[in-house]
């Protein structure tokens, strides 16, 4: 064992470049899959709230699958499984455009969409039906009542859960290591193999993850605070 020496990592420009690249890829995965998850969650939510019974049970099955299968297994199914049965033109294109990253984004995004749509749904369901009736009685149409009365309240109710799940999405981006995406924990492992300074590089990686998670948590707490009408800034 060599003595503890953080500068062996922090003072080495090559390792720092690898770390920076890892952080960048982690953020690309986290942000892209967050956007994918949120847009898909809205579509799922719209189907859930529309009257069709078939659409409803398809969404329920989608949510149930993604919540009951480990995220890691979902990623493995995407990358080791589905990737191999795609038509060769598509898989060639994917291989040329860093397939690991694309599958990490798609896998995590589809998985998280299930959580986000459930958060939003329970947020919307916690509003009493009187709100809709009152809005309609005041002359709002369905869309306008949704847009101006129900959705603002529903999103506000759902905010804490959405923030929690955004943090876990960020943390889950580390699972992409098993399909070889070059994100932060991958960079940490690589630097470990090069430098043999396991303790130092794990410490750096852990602190980085922790700092980013805490920033997301604090941002979420601030958003939740701001969205509360008692604090005056929402409207």
């Amino acid at each position, binding site marked *: 064992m060599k003595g503890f020496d953080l500068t062996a990592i922090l003072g080495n420009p090559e390792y720092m470049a690898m770390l920076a690249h890892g952080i960048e890829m982690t953020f690309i995965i986290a942000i892209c899959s967050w956007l994918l998850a949120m847009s898909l969650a809205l579509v799922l939510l719209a189907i859930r709230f529309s009257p069709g019974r078939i659409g409803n049970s398809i969404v329920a099955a989608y949510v149930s*699958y993604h919540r*009951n299968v480990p995220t890691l*297994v979902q990623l493995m199914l995407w990358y080791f499984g589905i990737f191999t049965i795609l038509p060769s033109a598509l898989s060639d294109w994917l291989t040329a455009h860093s397939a690991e990253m694309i599958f990490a984004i798609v896998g995590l995004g589809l998985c998280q969409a299930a959580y986000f749509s459930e958060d939003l749904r329970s947020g919307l369901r916690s509003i009493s039906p009187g709100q809709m009736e009152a809005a309609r009685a005041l002359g709002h149409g369905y869309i306008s009542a949704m847009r101006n009365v129900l959705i603002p309240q529903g999103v506000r109710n759902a905010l804490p859960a959405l923030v929690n799940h955004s943090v876990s999405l960020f*943390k889950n981006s580390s*699972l992409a290591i098993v399909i070889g995406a070059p994100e932060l*924990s991958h960079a940490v492992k690589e630097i470990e193999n090069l430098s043999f300074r396991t303790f130092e590089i*794990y410490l750096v990686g852990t602190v980085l*993850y922790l700092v980013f998670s805490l920033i997301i948590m604090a941002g979420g707490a601030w958003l939740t605070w701001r969205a509360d009408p008692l604090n005056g800034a929402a409207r």
Partner: protein
Amino acid sequence: MIHDIIAIIDEYWLLLLIGQYPNGPLGGLANTLILSALSIVIAFPFAILLAFARLSKYRVLRWPVTVLVYVTRGVPLLMLVLWSYFLVPLLTGADVPSFLTMLTTLVVYQGAFLSEIIRAGIVALGPGQMDAARALGHGWFGAMRYVILPQALYNMIPSMLSTFVATIKDTTLGYVINVPDLTFAASQVNNQLLTQPFQVFLILALTYYVICWSLTALTNVVERRITRRRAGLAAPRRQLSLITNATEQP
């Protein structure tokens, strides 16, 4: 396609179920379940202690545990697995099997999560319970042991069951350090077959789905029972109109 899946299950079900057990270490689904159950059983008393420490009036107890809880919430489980893989053999000075490494990680990780659940359960009871128990002559530990914990833990059973489901899902991360669990068995099958990765990983996903789905369904049943029971206990012999009010109280 369906035919392939049935053929794979037919040939490899024993490997997926118990790994290479008689000739090697126990693995497969059995190991996944044992690992999750053991880590919950060990994490549970640990979590109660952590919850006490977080509720303590002494900063020396409160702060380290608060830090631990925030670290486990803010750092990916994968990083914690890598840490244990590095630290556990270093600290014990022995060649530790990956099963034990993963068990340690899960105990710390789920212990921190469970402690938050237990803390919430204790806080939700309100300070009146503690005050009343103390007034009746219980010491702090007596009050906790006979009054607070029985109620808090009973109300927390659904959350604990869902933590168990989460643990089953978290055991898959043992794959990174080669814990011989279900995921590991499936990737072994995949390495032997080589030609049908989609089918193999679909079987893997569906197996997890069936287990976690049934446990979640069980959780929902238990949760409904407990809600009903609590409503009944809160208002044993009153009129119906009062019962509906009582359900809204924590």
